[in-house]
């Protein structure tokens, strides 16, 4: 009898396990495009994932309201990856079960690399709004909306050199962050070809990002005129505050991570006066397109969009342009759709929020002009060359 009970228990539990494994087969929705998104919406990096989620959502709602792509509506599903490569692959698989045709994401570089290794097997068309490392686009089915980190690093070094912004430059970067160390590495390489010297390069990590007095002291001791900050705005606002209170008078130069610095709570924005940044998007820009986007976004989600939201918004419109160009239909298989869109991408020229006349090469990297901005009177102003 004991055996019987055990066997029954085993059989029952197996049945339960089997039941939980199966189910939810991929039902191919033949009359809609199913766009999936991946990014962290919980945990420390949630603001980036949420921005991507909302940015893409806004674009899809607009497109659907205007009649869809070639008359076809879009369905949208966004999955959380908790900023974990493993979870990101799980999210990708979950979206596949949902029936995804096209992927917008993942939001971050590491996750993007992990997912790209899976999506290439399905030949799924993937466009990452903000996965900026070069490894993200190693496969031919992946395209980027944002600049690659090396391009930003080289661009920043070239800009400082060519415009003689400074001759002695200090760098403060986050060595535990892929984005930051990626830009710094290329910046340092390119600096060798430019007429300025890097006099100090000090790192901090995610565990020590509140006190920057040592790094600033080093920069001052070495006679730096300009501090290059390839980091996100939260840390940058601390650096600016601490530099001001210690009485240092550096110029500051940053990349797209600094966009949003004027919105940091309890930050004295007058300290940011004169900060220069290379960024494709600024929420305070005066052009009509950006202002409409910012207004709509604020109305829908009660938050000011950052560059991640803008990148995701653009990503959806890029997909729309690619579908229109290739004449792709939702009835096509994932792989056929992937081939069609890949072919169309290299022929496109898209005007988006994050750049005018964006074009792509077959390797997946975007060509767009970086905009150099300077913060003037509490606003981002385009520096005219």
């Amino acid at each position, binding site marked *: 009898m004991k055996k019987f009970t055990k066997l029954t228990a085993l059989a029952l539990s197996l049945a339960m*396990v089997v039941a939980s494994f*199966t189910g939810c087969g991929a039902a191919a929705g033949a009359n809609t495009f199913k766009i999936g998104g991946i990014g962290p919406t919980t945990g420390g990096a949630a603001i980036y994932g949420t921005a991507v989620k909302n940015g893409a959502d806004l674009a899809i709602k607009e497109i659907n309201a205007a009649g869809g792509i070639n008359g076809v509506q879009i369905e949208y599903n966004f999955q959380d990856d908790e900023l974990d*490569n*493993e979870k990101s692959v799980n999210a990708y*698989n979950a979206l596949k079960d949902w029936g995804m045709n096209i992927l917008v994401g993942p939001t971050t*570089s590491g996750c993007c690399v992990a997912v790209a290794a899976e999506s290439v097997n399905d030949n799924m068309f993937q466009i990452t709004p903000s996965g900026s490392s070069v490894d993200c686009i190693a496969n031919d089915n992946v395209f980027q909306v944002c600049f690659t980190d090396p391009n930003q690093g080289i661009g920043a070094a070239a800009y400082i050199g060519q415009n003689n912004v400074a001759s002695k430059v200090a760098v403060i970067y986050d060595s535990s962050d892929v984005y930051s*160390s990626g830009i710094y590495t290329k910046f340092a390489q390119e600096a060798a070809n430019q007429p300025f010297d890097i006099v100090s390069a000090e790192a901090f*990590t995610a565990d020590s990002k509140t006190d920057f007095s040592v790094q600033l002291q080093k920069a001052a001791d070495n006679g730096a005129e300009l501090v290059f900050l390839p980091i996100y705005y939260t840390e940058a606002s601390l650096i600016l505050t601490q530099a001001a209170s210690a009485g240092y008078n550096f110029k500051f130069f940053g990349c797209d991570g600094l966009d949003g610095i004027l919105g940091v709570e309890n930050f004295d924005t007058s300290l940011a006066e004169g900060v220069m940044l290379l960024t494709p998007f600024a929420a305070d820009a005066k052009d009509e397109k950006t202002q409409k986007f910012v207004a709509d976004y604020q109305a829908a989600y009660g938050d000011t969009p950052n560059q991640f939201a803008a990148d995701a918004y653009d990503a959806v419109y890029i997909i729309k342009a690619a579908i229109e160009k290739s004449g792709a239909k939702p009835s096509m298989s994932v792989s056929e759709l992937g081939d069609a869109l890949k072919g169309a991408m290299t022929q496109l020229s898209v005007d988006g929020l994050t750049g005018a006349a964006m074009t792509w090469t077959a390797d997946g990297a975007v060509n767009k002009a970086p905009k150099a901005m300077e913060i003037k009177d509490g606003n981002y102003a385009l520096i005219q060359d």
Partner: protein
Amino acid sequence: MKTFVSKNKDNLITYGIVVVAYAVMEILIKAGLISSLMQGLLVPLCAYVILAVSLNLTVGILGELSLGHAGFMCVGAFTSAFFSKITMNVITVTWIRFTLAIVIGFIAAGLIGFLIGMPVLRLKGDYLAIVTLAFGEIIKNVINVLYIGKDSKGLHFSMKDAVALNLEPEGDVIINGAQGITGTPKNSTFTIGVILILITLFIVLNLIKSRDGRAIMSIRDNVIAAESVGINITKYKLLAFALSAALAGVAGVLYSHNLSSLMATPKNFGYNMSIMILVFVVLGGIGNIRGSIISAVILTLLPELLRGLSNYRMLIYAIVLIAMMLFNWAPKAQAFRDRLLDKLMFWKKKKVTVTEKEGGASDER
């Protein structure tokens, strides 16, 4: 003799569960009934099962609380991924390279476990837990500042940044600090994972049954008594700890060869993960190997099966975890369970409760 036989049978059931689960999953995959999400989860599941079983060796059998298990996994993951990356063009036969990678992960993690164990195992209880926690974090942070590159002159090392490696233009950065290793070949499969689980079980279950295992358990139960009968405390403690670390390294190998981008983040190799593994062990029953397997599977699947609830799943997951812990281990809940079982099996009331108690309690401390 009777307990010996029943123990053997008990172990066979454990192997049986793994083999049957494997067979069922394979059949379902062949029949195309498994969702992509599940298929993607199979290899991580194997890795977590190995982690839970190996930690149970330290926590349940040796009786020491270790919070650095993710650190050993990290060592195994990075050494083996590094090996696979540099020999990708040299050893082209996948299974030979992957077998070597597993052996390297095992040895590297075991070695680190041995080195860390030597000073650390002098401590007991909470103190040991704190020190292992710190060591786990050290391992993670060291890997985050480690840069290794390869060019025609050989390997270059740096602790500063990738530029300081001074690589030739065609050189390749293999470990890129916080960006970790990208492009590890995807060699882990469900079959290999299950084979590794079976090997892990074989090692751990046989160790428990052996003379060495009894020595280790005697240390757990009473150090002074064990010492008085001439058991070499240091040796057996180190043996169990290093073996546990080495098996965690194997899990790391499985993990790293399943993802093409390997980074040491607080999420996957930090103390959060160590505590997660400890939760598997505690929920499954300290010292209960089969329980570890089951709880590792359930707790890894749960958050993924709850995806439909979007961000509420974190909350639900936590609540379910609390409920499961109470249901399994609160004395009242245990009594309630027994009563429920009695009612269900009223016709064989006495016998069932007695045998259930015997079977369940034999492995616990």
